């Protein structure tokens, strides 16, 4: 089963994909650092890219990336394949960690236990959501990017402020000086368009 070299000298090098994520997670649960290294080689780029997008700062994004992979290391046994793909789990964790950093920077009041709970929440199954159909790690991000960019500016801005900005809909309305109902409607319409444009995304094969 093991076709990966037992040692890799440099992280982030192009890794010859021989093992599935599931294989690597199984090894990670047993403390195999090489397995984490292989997962880093696969996913450091999308993790770092998302953190930069949210934080707008490469230094902070590095810290978030380090935090995320160490969390993956610590909490590998909490990952539940039945609930979704590893890449989705990792990027969800990245989103939550980066948004927490962003909110801390803004000194935005947190909900009770929100900071830690929201991060941890993504480490286990969400009983409400089978996110197995989310993006494949092999998905060309260009397609999602294009779908987002093709939205009318007002819809895209509202969605970006929500997802990458970590703002509540009330805060988005205040930021943009628009009625709350308008913001909600823009988000709904924008998400509907994304849903249509990306209907078949996330159904691609496993690694």
């Amino acid at each position, binding site marked *: 089963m093991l076709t990966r070299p037992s040692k890799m000298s*440099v*992280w*982030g090098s192009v890794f010859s994909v021989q093992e599935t994520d599931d294989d690597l997670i199984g090894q990670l*649960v*047993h*403390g195999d*650092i090489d397995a*984490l290294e292989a997962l*880093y080689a696969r996913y450091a780029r*999308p993790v*770092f*890219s998302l953190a*930069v*997008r949210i934080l707008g700062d490469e230094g902070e994004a*590095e810290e978030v*990336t*380090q935090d995320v*992979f160490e969390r993956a290391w*610590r*909490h590998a*046994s909490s990952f539940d*394949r*039945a*609930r979704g793909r590893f890449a*989705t789990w990792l990027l*969800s964790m*990245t*989103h939550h960690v980066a*948004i927490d950093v962003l909110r801390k920077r803004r000194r935005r009041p947190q*909900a*009770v*236990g*929100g900071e*830690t*709970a929201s991060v*941890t929440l993504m*480490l*286990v*199954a969400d009983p*409400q*959501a*089978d*996110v197995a*159909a*989310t993006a494949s790690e092999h998905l060309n*991000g260009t397609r*999602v*990017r294009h779908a*987002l960019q093709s939205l009318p500016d007002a819809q895209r801005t509202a969605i970006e402020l*929500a*997802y990458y900005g970590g703002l509540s*809909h009330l805060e*988005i309305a205040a930021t943009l000086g628009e009625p709350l109902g308008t913001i909600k409607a823009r*988000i*709904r319409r924008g*998400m509907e368009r994304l*849903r249509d444009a*990306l209907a078949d*995304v*996330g159904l691609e094969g496993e690694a």
Partner: protein
Amino acid sequence: MSERHVEDLLDLYALGTLEPDEVESVERHLEACEACRSRAVEAKRVAALLAWAPEPRTPPPHLGATIRRHIEQLAEQEQSKRTPQPGRPLGQGGVGRTPRPPKGGVRSVTPPLGGRGVRAIAAAGLAVLVLLAGWNMVLQRRLAVLTADVATRQQVETVLRTPGARVITLTPQPAAPEARGNLIIDPEGTSAYLVADGLPTLPGDKSYQLWLADGDTRFSVGVFRGNPAGEATVFVRSPKPLGDYSGCGITIEPAGGSPGPTGEQVLRAQAYRAEGGW
């Protein structure tokens, strides 16, 4: 179940842009409404795709080596600490159990520690115990397990420090007489940490599954495997207050979980009441 459907809120819910009270309301509805639940799954799928949209950026070349070095240090610290007692890095004093050896043939470095060094962690553990001693006698009496993972322990501690938090002790079942577990429930009763140890090592095709019982219905709230030392800390999020359920249980199921419990129970608790616990 609330009467009004929540489909107009699901996109906002999926993007994480609702206020906390709205999230609670939506989740309460989703628990009972299949139609809205499937719409929520689709909304979450689309929201999750946004994670892939940013322009690709390459992390600095040194970052991978930095992370690896840090984790290796953590693993070494853990390894050296475990040498006399390979099973449990922390919490032995509180539980008095013989540690389980890790699975053979693998590096016994899980769970890794959180980055402050063994001494700091030991001190933190003591600090937690001291804190608990002055906190809530009921919680202190019932808290049998502390996880070694600093980050997770801090999160558990956060819940414990919240006035109104409760700890429910689960009872081991014949399939796992050495298993022990506590459910540390937040004051609102809708989220909790399951902290367990003494769990039997499972074959690769099995998982543990945590269930809430509502009459004859069993509702899955998590699938996990535990680490090689037989320990597990699982965050549980309940769509409605845990007090509304008649009990909970952990069973052994096929890897990835089952739609309903099929295997042997390892831990259980029944008849939860807000004041008295299960």
